[in-house]
Structure formats: C-alpha cells, structure tokens
C-alpha cells in the first residue's frame, strides 16, 4: 500500500534561490513523520511546498494522486490542513469565526457541529473564549486555536509547523498530549516540523533529518532516538 503522502525529488525555493535540493519523504496514514533540522534547513519550506504555497519541482503524491502545482485552496479541499509558521490565526476575527473558517469547505453540518463539540472537549479554554477576538488570546491558546482550526477541516493529513515555538514548557507538554490524541482518535497522518527534536521523536514513528535542503538521515524515529552519534552531531542533546 502506498503511503498517504509520498514526496520524491522535491526541489523548491523562493525566486531564483533554491532551498530544497531534492527531498524524498513519506507520511503514512495514521502515522507521524517528523522533519528535523536546524534553522534554515528547509523544514518550513517543505511544508509550504506540500500545500502549494510555493513553486516546486518533483513529485508530490497524496492518496496516490499528484498534487504538485495545484492551488493551495484546492490542496486544502482535498483534506490537507496546514498550521503554518506564525500559526495563521485570523487575529481580527473571533474564536468562533476561526472555528467556522476551519470547517469552511465542509458541507456536512451536523458532523461539523459534532467536531466543534469535540474541539471544545479537547481545548476547553477555547470554549471559554468563544466570542473573543483571536488576537487577544495567549500564545498557547492561539496555538490550540490553530490546531483546532486545522482539525476542523477533517483532514486526512495534518501539516504542523513548530507547534512548540515560543511556548512555555508546560503548554508544550499539553499541546503534545493533544497531538497524541489526534493521532489516536482522528486517524489522520501528521507531518511535523519541530526544533524540539526530543519531543518530536517521542511522538513520531518516522523521522528525517534535514541539513541545508538535503536529507542527511532518515529512518524510524525510535532508532534515531537511540543513535548516540546522530543525536550528538545533529540534534544537539
């Protein structure tokens, strides 16, 4: 069975500058793939390439079909939800409106309502702030809102860009606990970009290590975690 997302020979960049020099990676249905690496290695660019936010070369297949070169909104409509760097919250709108936008392309009203309730249960704090302008939420709450918004698309694949960025350790723990739940309960595949390699490897089953636009190490997350030399030379802990 082919993977949920298959990427082969992916090249991408901004203008004439290439940032990715031919990446191969997979995300399995119900699995978590982590992209690790230092700043500027090309992690965020990889996610942007998958959701069609930048021009790409190479193969990107989702559920067996090529999505390379498609418009971002068309890719979202296929069931790929993306929590971008900077979270992409609609700051001027309320929490409720952000929720409704998450489910914007869905037509199954009753099902959407059920998903709203599920998100309230997972993120009770968002329910308390329901009518509040999203820009007034704390950083952790905004990250939760970003994840909730993405999940409301009912995605088959979730792209997460640094969900721990700028958050207090306790909040990070909370968010990773929720991601474990997503993985168990929603059955969606997750492509996770993270600086906190330790946390990411705990959650992931597959991991790729990027260095200046190339994959230098790939394998099972558990094995990479055990590998002393990789940890020392690339992950720095």
């Amino acid at each position, binding site marked *: 069975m082919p993977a949920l997302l298959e990427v082969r020979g992916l090249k991408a960049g901004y203008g004439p500058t290439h940032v990715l020099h031919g990446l191969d990676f997979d995300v399995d249905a119900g699995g978590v793939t982590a992209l690790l690496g230092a700043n500027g290695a090309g992690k965020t660019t990889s996610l942007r390439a998958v959701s069609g936010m930048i021009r790409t070369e190479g193969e990107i297949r989702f559920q067996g079909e090529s999505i390379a070169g498609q418009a971002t909104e068309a890719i979202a409509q296929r069931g790929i*939800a993306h929590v*971008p760097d900077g979270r992409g919250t609609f*700051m*001027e709108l309320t929490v409720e409106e952000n929720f*409704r*936008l998450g489910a*914007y*392309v869905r037509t199954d009203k009753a099902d959407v309502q059920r998903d709203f309730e599920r998100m309230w249960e997972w993120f009770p704090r968002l329910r308390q702030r329901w009518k509040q302008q999203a820009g007034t939420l704390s950083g952790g709450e905004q990250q939760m809102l970003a994840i909730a918004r993405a999940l409301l698309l009912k995605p088959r694949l979730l792209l997460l860009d640094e969900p721990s960025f700028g958050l207090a350790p306790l909040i990070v723990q909370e968010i990773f606990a929720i991601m474990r739940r997503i993985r168990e309960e929603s059955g969606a595949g997750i492509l996770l970009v993270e600086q906190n390699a330790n946390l990411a490897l705990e959650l992931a089953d597959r991991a790729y290590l990027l260095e200046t636009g190339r994959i230098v190490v790939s394998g099972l997350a558990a094995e990479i975690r055990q590998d002393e030399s990789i940890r020392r030379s690339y992950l720095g802990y």
Partner: protein
Amino acid sequence: MDGLAHQIIAGIATGGIYASVALALVMIYQATHHINFAQGEMATLSTFIAWYLVTEGVPYWIAFFATIGISFVIGALIERILLRPVQNAPPLTHVGVFIGLLLIIGNATGWIFGYTTKVFPTPFVSDAPLFGGLISAHELGTTAVTLVVLLLIFVFFRYTKLGLGMRAAAYNPRSARLVGINVGMMLALGWGLAAAVGAIAGMMVAPVVFLDPTMMLGILLYAFAGALLGGIDNPGGAVLGGFAVGVLENLAGAYVVGTELKLTVALIIIISVLLVRPAGLFGRVVLSRV
C-alpha cells in the same frame, strides 16, 4: 429653528450617499489596502446605464435592480482583468491602475453618453409636503434605501458563510487559502459588491446633483473624508463618518462657508484626520499578543 432641522435632515440624506460610497471604498481597502480612486467614476457609469434603461422605457425599479446586477459584473470583471495581474505589484502600480481606471471610465462614460447634463428621475415623489415640509420625499426615500443597503451589507458580512469567507480573505489571504477559500474569487466578489453599492449611491444622488460624467467627483471626496473620519479599516465607522460628513457639510454650507466653498469642508476633514488621528474615530486597533 426649522431651517436648522431641515439642514440637518438634508445632511443625513446626502450623508447616506457618502456613507454608501465610503463603505464601497472601505470594502476594497480592506481587501487590497488601496483606495480605489475610480469608485466614483464606476458609480457614474452605473448611473448612466440606469439612465439609459429608464429613457428606453424600462420601469424605474426594474432598471434599478438591473443596474445593480450589471454594476456587480463590471466590478468583478475589473478585478479579474485589471487588478489581478498586478496584485503583488508595489503600491505605485496600484495607484497607476486606479488613476488609469478613473480616466478611462470617466472618458468612456462621456464618449458613450455625452457630456451634457441629464435629468435623472427619482422614484420618490409625494404631492403633499412631508412632516410640514421638513423633508422631501426624495430625501426620505434615499435615506431609507441607503439604510436598507447598509443593513443588508452588514448582515451579509456578519452572518453569512460567504461574508465570513470574504472577511477572512481580506484579513489574511494566506490563511484563507489554507482553509480552502478561493481568495481570488472573494476579491472579485468584493469588487462586485463595492461597485453595486456605488451604483445605488449614484442612482440615489443623481436626481439631486444631475447626471453628468463628473457627477461623483465631489461625492467621492466627501466619501473619502467620511471613510477617513470613521476609520478607513472599519466599515461601521466609515458609514458613521459618511453621515457625519454629510451633516457637517450641509451645516457649514448653510451657515459658515456658503455653498461655493462646501467642498473645502471635505478637504479640511481629510487633512485634520490625517494630522490628528490617522486611524480615524473608530479605527480598530487590533490587539495581538505573541
């Protein structure tokens, strides 16, 4: 005293026109962060289309709604054909496109329909004076139409899914795409809506100022002053600003500067707002924590 009351009421009636055009300006500003200088010319063209339909014998209200529809299509097409290719271009390019649009539409209107001033009909006529002559039937009708339009626009943006999608696309196009919204389509719809609102304003004001290709020039200035006064990024504020400018302009014209210098009131308001409070009275300060 009656004179003052009448001036205020007449000010509210014209203020409604300014409010509509201000709203059209704000709708496009929110989506593109540019002021559409051609908004007035587009409204004039729409009014000429309505005038043409009426003189061809089409009943007023049918011509009214047909014009709204045609204007919507023209507005959306302008966005698709002229604005879309420059959407990532620097601000000066946009200014150039808007000024070009202003000149092209203005001159095309004169070329097609002629430069002579025309009488435009009002659907609101009454034989008896209303409220002891305090307000004319046209002023009352215009105010009612304006309020209904503003209310419909408010309900559309606040309570419908499409309205939410358009707001999302205006505030944060990148995220809107990520939730599956076709941002280009939303922009075209926004232009269409703005053109339709402008068309209504044009048809409402034409019976008072008479119809010629430069009819909306002054009105666009007042509307711009109103939008700035209320807050260029706040639709509700712009509407209130439009009404306020209408009343101020009328009172200043009647009691202070006289009708000839009325337009300076708009310019004074624009300059004062930019100097004293650039965000406008109700310009929203977006809170954001990181």
